[in-house]
């Protein structure tokens, strides 16, 4: 059974081969492109579900390619795979339409997890209305209800707004600037300390171990990621 078609865009043959091996083992079909032009051609011809895009391509900067990919295939899952450590590139890639990024050299389980999240998003759109489960906590967006270990938790309006915004990108990174804009307004886009303080409060209320957070994770210099679990019956094991 085909779990999905993945387009791998990377100029290094060794990397392409390894990605193909890891992805094929997980049941995905893989097509490969070595440069931007071929990537765009395959994007139209093969209609992949997810694109793994390297930012350092021989014929053009990967960042330039992002809008073109979004235009050609608006709904495709778009993951940036880059050796570049520069935080600016990651933020720019997210702003230009990438769903998430994977740092090279990658961790295969992490890579596969990101691919799954991207596929899920493609299948379900943003999971508004669903009940999300992360760590010991659940968030019911329709009922505006948050539980930890089955017991209701009281959140301040800012805490709830931030959690809901994170829940709109389940498993994916949301940039600091995006979260600040959404919760505090455009004027506070760079007031990172606001975000830090509310995240700390959320962790204290919702994490199993607030000193070693597992649900709300930080991507240094980029943003936060809510580590939701796949859609399973929300409270099946709880009730």
């Amino acid at each position: 059974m085909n779990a999905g078609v993945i387009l791998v865009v990377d100029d290094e043959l060794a990397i392409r081969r390894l990605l193909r091996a890891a992805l094929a083992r997980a049941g995905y079909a893989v097509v490969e492109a070595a440069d931007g032009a071929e990537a765009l051609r395959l994007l139209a011809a093969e209609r992949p579900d997810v694109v793994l895009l390297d930012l350092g391509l021989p014929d053009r900067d990967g960042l330039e390619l992002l809008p073109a990919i979004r235009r050609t295939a608006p709904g495709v899952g778009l993951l940036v795979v880059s050796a570049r450590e520069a935080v600016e590139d990651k933020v720019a890639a997210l702003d230009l339409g990438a769903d998430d990024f994977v740092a090279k050299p990658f961790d295969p389980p992490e890579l596969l997890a990101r691919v799954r999240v991207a596929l899920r998003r493609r299948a379900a759109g943003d999971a508004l209305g669903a009940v999300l489960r992360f760590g010991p906590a659940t968030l019911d967006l329709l009922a505006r209800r948050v539980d930890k270990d089955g017991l209701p938790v009281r959140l301040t309006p800012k805490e709830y707004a931030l959690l809901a915004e994170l829940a709109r990108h389940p498993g994916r990174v949301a940039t600091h600037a995006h979260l600040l804009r959404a919760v505090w307004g455009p004027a506070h886009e760079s007031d990172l300390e606001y975000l830090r303080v509310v995240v700390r409060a959320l962790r204290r209320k919702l994490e199993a171990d607030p000193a070693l957070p597992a649900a709300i994770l930080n991507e240094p210099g980029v943003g936060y990621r809510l580590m939701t679990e796949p859609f399973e019956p929300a409270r099946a094991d709880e009730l």
Partner: protein
Amino acid sequence: MPSAPFPFAAPDERACFRAYLEALLLVGLVAALARAASPPLPPAAADLPFLLPVLLLAVARGSGPALLAAAAGAIAYSVLFTEPVGSLAIDDPADVVTVLVLLAVALFAGRLAAQLREQAREARARAARDAALLDFSRALAGATGEAELGRAICEQAARLFDAHAALVAPGADGGSPRLVAAAPALDGLGGFEREAAALALSDGRPAGRGGDRLRAADYLFHPLTARPGAPAALGLGRPDGRAPVPDADQPLLHSVLAQAALAWERERLAAELRDAALLRERDELRRTLLAAIGHDLRTPLTAILAAAGELCETGGEAARTLEAEARRLQRTLADLLGLARLETGELRPRLEAVDLTDVVSAAARAVRAADRGAPRLSLPADPPLVRADPRLLEHMLLNLLDNALRHGGAPVAVVAERTIDGGLALRVLDEGPGLPPPGAPSAAAGPSAAGGAGLGLAIVRGFGEAMGVAVEAANRPGGGAAYSLLFAPGLLVAEPAA
């Protein structure tokens, strides 16, 4: 070197005396000739010849001798040619007029002539000074390098002022002044000279013999620029102890100092340019090298890591070790490249408000993933936010944890606590043997262990320096080592109310 006549020195006393003698002799000669010619000529015709010595002397010798010649001529005329002859008395009123007119004309003509003469003398002096300065600046322009320029300045100044010259510049790191060059050559400066030079350099006013302070020095040091902190000073002195630069030559001295200052500044800029070009070249080379190393090492490492990851899935302790070590190698490589790029300025720390919980938990997770044990984390419930680059900080902590788990001893703990000065200390504590004693690092820990620890700690220190975070290593009172990252109060971020 024979003493060159100073072109604009004041006429000396002997020359003056001779000019007055000449005035008297000339007047005597004219009187004698007029007397000899007086029978054919009427005595009244003898008045005009007395103007001749006055004009002659005014032009040739200046107004003083001309005045004497006028007075002497009037006396001689009244004694020899007016009635009664042989006496200063004059009977005929017309003769009185003649004598007075003679005196007046002599005075007037003498003054005019003397002015002309003065102007000509000044023009000559100016020309000579300009020529001397031109020589000076030409000699300076031809010199390259500090030593050669210093020698040119000294030789030219010594020639111009007929004095010994020495050029001094401030010593390195504000130490005592150093001798750049001297003419005639000197081995070094004496104590008094050093003191005078230091004073002149520091406050921009002359000091030394002939000046108004530190007269015990053999030289009078003139700073090249009349400002505190002069770039260099020119010392002038004479073996006979007289003032090396007479007052009349002060304008020349000023011009010489100004020229020397210009040349000195030009040389300093040229040297800086040479240094900057060299640095730029080196930086460029380093950047290219780093980029190449980064690419050529990272790519195979990525392949190794991915392959090791695949091997891990089929099990095997060896595969897990391979993967963990490859990951460590990859991290060290990334850290080293980062450190080098920080040094070349290619990478700048991105400072932001950082929650230490994020940094500490990420580092602990990475250590745990590498199967190196689980550090005990002991952060206060609300560690203050710090201004730092989160990635650099995480890597600093990762290196410290790695170091503690490898070379220290379990259990390893991370604690954060406020410091006495109101800052924050993030400490990695172990219960191992503690720090190697100073001076014997390799003997105590073995070469490989010391090398590993040294590299990791060098990275920690380098990253810390880039962010203004101090790194401190100490032995704990109860045994074991403590490595602390110290955030000054200025690096803590005030928190808004939630």
